[in-house]
């Protein structure tokens, strides 16, 4: 039971400033680029707005530029373009793998990097039609009083399931943000909050302009589990970046998606520096991930599966990167 999109205004700004101004003029406006997330939700009667501000006409947002060895990726670059970029694949493999695995080819052609980072959190009680949610007395995330996933609790547990964020997190990305108060740059990790209802630390009228990746990244990889090899959102996605020295861990970064309300870097991996990547270390990695991943009943697949699979993937990617470093 699809909600009709009627009486909707569409603004077509040509610059970032115009986009921000359009939003200031009509509070509650939503920025849209590929629309692969937002429009689907709007068709479900979610993310209602009177005005969409189409960012696709802003040239500034669509560049991939190298600078001083690092790379700046415009927020309007499509996921498909990112997946195709030879420079990204060569240096930032986790990001290329994440981009290539997003949804299906049609989605990747439309979806943008900025939109992927700002993807709404998801839950089987939320991503349903208006009729469905109404019959279920709505939910904490939208129009309702309780979270059906954890009725005793006070917060929304909808899960973040973008693929690019964990890859960018282990690669140490920062993001440039523009808004009514001007421009600012923050580490990507500070964009996200562990709250399914408000998981983005963006103020009204703020939008992401670009992603900055530092030079000389460590080798990295991304993988995920999902029921089907295309279309599905990750039940758990894992990015790992591993730097080695003398066949030992120099630095290890692990980030997860699909398990919590935000993508996050697993804490405590700095203790692994100087260790050999052996069965003991891999078991510790599994335990660490199992402890910090907190999937809830937001998908049909069991929460425990997502926890166990995240840990297994973290172990697998670390072992693979280590094996590759020895070659």
């Amino acid at each position, binding site marked *: 039971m699809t909600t009709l999109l009627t009486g909707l205004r569409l603004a077509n700004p040509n610059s970032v400033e115009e986009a921000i101004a359009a939003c200031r003029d009509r509070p509650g406006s939503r920025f849209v680029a590929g629309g692969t997330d937002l429009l689907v939700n709007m068709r479900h009667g979610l993310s209602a707005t009177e005005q969409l501000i189409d960012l696709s006409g802003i040239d500034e947002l669509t560049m991939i530029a190298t600078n001083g060895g690092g790379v700046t990726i415009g927020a309007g670059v499509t996921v498909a373009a990112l997946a195709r970029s030879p420079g990204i694949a060569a240096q930032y493999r986790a990001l290329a793998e994440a981009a290539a695995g997003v949804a299906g080819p049609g989605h990747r052609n439309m979806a943008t990097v900025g939109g992927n980072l700002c993807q709404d959190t998801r839950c089987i009680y939320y991503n349903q039609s208006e009729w469905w949610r109404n019959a279920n007395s709505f939910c904490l995330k939208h129009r309702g009083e309780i979270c059906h996933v954890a009725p005793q609790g006070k917060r929304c547990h909808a899960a973040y399931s973008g693929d690019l964020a964990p890859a960018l997190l282990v690669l140490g990305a920062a993001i440039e943000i523009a808004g009514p108060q001007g421009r600012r740059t923050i580490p990507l990790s500070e964009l996200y909050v562990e709250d399914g209802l408000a998981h983005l630390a963006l103020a009204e009228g703020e939008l992401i302009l670009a992603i900055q990746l530092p030079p000389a990244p460590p080798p990295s990889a991304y993988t995920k589990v999902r029921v089907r090899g295309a279309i599905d959102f990750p*039940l758990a996605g894992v990015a790992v970046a591993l730097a080695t020295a003398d066949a030992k861990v120099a630095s290890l970064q692990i980030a997860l998606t699909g398990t919590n309300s935000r993508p996050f870097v697993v804490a405590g991996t700095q203790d692994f520096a100087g260790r050999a990547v052996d069965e003991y270390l891999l078991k510790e990695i599994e335990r660490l991930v199992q402890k910090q991943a907190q999937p809830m009943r937001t998908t049909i697949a*069991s929460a425990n599966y997502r926890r166990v699979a995240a840990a297994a993937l973290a172990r697998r990617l670390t072992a693979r990167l280590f094996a590759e470093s020895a070659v």
Partner: protein
Amino acid sequence: MTVDRFAANTFARRGVPLIDGIEKVTGRARYTADLDHADALVGRILRSPVSHGDIVRLDVSKARALPGVVAVITGEDCPHTYGVLPVAMNEYPLARDRVRYRGEPIAAVAAIDAETAEHALSLIELEINKLPAYYTSEEARVPGATLLHDNKPGNLEREVHHEFGDWREGFATADLVREESISCAEINHAQIEPHACLMDYDPLTGRLTVQSVSQVGYYLHLMLARCLDMDTSRIRVIKPFIGGGFGARVEPLNFEIVTALLARAAAGKVLMKLSREETFITHRARPQTDIKLRLGMCRDGRITACACEVVQRGGAYAGYGIITILYAGALLQGLYDIPAIKYDGYRVYANLPPCGAMRGHGGVNTRHAFECLMDRMARDLGLDPFAVRRANLLHAPTRTLNDLMVNSYGLAECLDRVEKASGWRDRIGKLPDGKGLGMACSHYVSGAAKPIHWTGEPHAVVNVRLDFDGGITALTGAAEIGQGSSTMVAIAVSETLGVALDRVTVVAGDSAVTPKDNGAYSSRITFMVGNAAIDAARRLKAILTEAAARKLEARPEDVEAAGEVFRVGSGEQSSLPFADVVKAALVDRGAITVSGSFTCPPEAQGGKHKGGAVGSTMGFSYAAQVVEVSVDDATGMVTVDKVWTALDCGHAINPLAVEGQVQGSVWMGMGQALCEETRYLDGLPAHGSFLEYRMPTIAESPPIEVHIVESHDPYGPFGAKEASEGALAGFPPALVNAIANAIGIDLNEIPVTPDRVMDALIARRRQARLAETVRAAS
């Protein structure tokens, strides 16, 4: 590129593309939602927000008063039940008094546009007194549970208890008896085209013109007449292009009747397009099924007895339920030689959308359990899975214990073909860890030999007409739904007449011009309509041959027709081109219409026991398949690497179409086995989109190698049997058997989603740890 007009007739070994294929791939084909609805009102349905309850107040006055609203209807507007089985019509198009599942239609609106119609729905005031709701067979069967239907104690739609042969003796003499409990999740057809219909009621003439996605225009016709209190002659049912059925549309559906009621109330034309979610809620697909199966087996693999208990969670209304629970037992037979069978079936009501028929109707889930258990017993006895199947083959012609005819039987050859093609003998047991091979067999009916409505009419009628233009038109009520039925009719007619395929035009599914047909279900069309088409073409050919004989001054029995030439012997002088034959034939009589028919004789219509007609058919198709898998034991992910399938379809009338249908059924079996399932959260469908209902994508689709086996059925058209369903049921067990081969774990639940596989792996690790602890302690 030039096209040789007769090249199309070389299909004998290669086949021809479907005759309506060009329209589909060029986008010219008009599906129901594409029809001209410029002046149509928009229909919308108000659906129950609760699973079970009594309607205490339903006030549509505000909706009726909204400007732009032309009609609002409720259960008050239709006092008649509807359904596909005359003995089990217990459903109203719009609920009256009681609702029994979330999403059940309660009221409907026709308005000038969608926005107004939706606004009107929001103005309808509804109050429901909730009753206890049951979402599992187990809950619904608890003594004292609230009844969904007062006349159905225990919430049972139907119990079946069948015994054939001395099963006690069979188990007593077995060398090995093993029992397994296996369950299969509910699935849905997930046909690509969402439900839609366009109903046009002319208040001046009192006539209703119906265009809908139905696979069964005839049953729809009957139910519209019943529910609208109309004479059938005032209704015309037309079938547009249809985007898949798979059983979703083999019974008249509530939205079709609701839209017709709306059209009459609005005195006009109403277009109803259901969303994907509503299409899922309309459901009528394969029920969640619990199977307890026990087999007795000799050391050499011969089966001595079979005891099978099946519980199907059928949803809130009867639908096809009685047939489904009977099929589940009847189709235990007909594949192997089994000396004794006990079957206990229970069709249970629950507060969920009603189940129905789906490709492989009734047989798939019990076949799954059977083939899994057979494999496990083979392992227990140290036998090869192929050897166990070969130890139990039938020999045609024969009759099964439940009196089903087996007239042709190509299973042995199917087994040989896939065993060889997959390299089974060289590879089984030698694959690396995590990789496995599995196999299974299956079969399906070529049309139910006893029709649903016993009218005494033939099972199928085809009319063929010929006029001055030399064009041959085959008129059939058979619903072309993408399976190739119209192409099959064209080939049957052109082959019989010896004319080019493109001389034949097929007009299908318009009650004003085509003879009645029961519809596209139970794989009946090739066998029944194909035979009727051949019969009609033969009658036309007799007329043409007689005319040619007159012209050629020869006896009709000496005239031969091929390649659009009628000739006597081989002489140039004594031949006549088709156009001249037509002219000769039309002299005195003018345009010709002949009628051909096909009827299954009473001896084909099953046993005399209660429910014995279900499963009866003139010809079973047979299939064997081998599946190769990889299992990732860290993530529980199962990958299907390759499938080899052999199908005995009697004779491949159109090999290209057969191959497509076999791949389609294998692929659909794969969906059920691997990832498809409907899941409800307190009766609300959590699967109401193609994101959450996980049909395999091309990324999961393995190469499917199809081998066609031709056993030349004595009664089939050109020896043909069905080809669209038989290969489905073998996939799920072949996959589960392959997983057992790969990782040594027997899974008793499908689909084998990664979380289920992971649970089994974790359980095994836990057991192994426990065993180690015990060893350490002892």
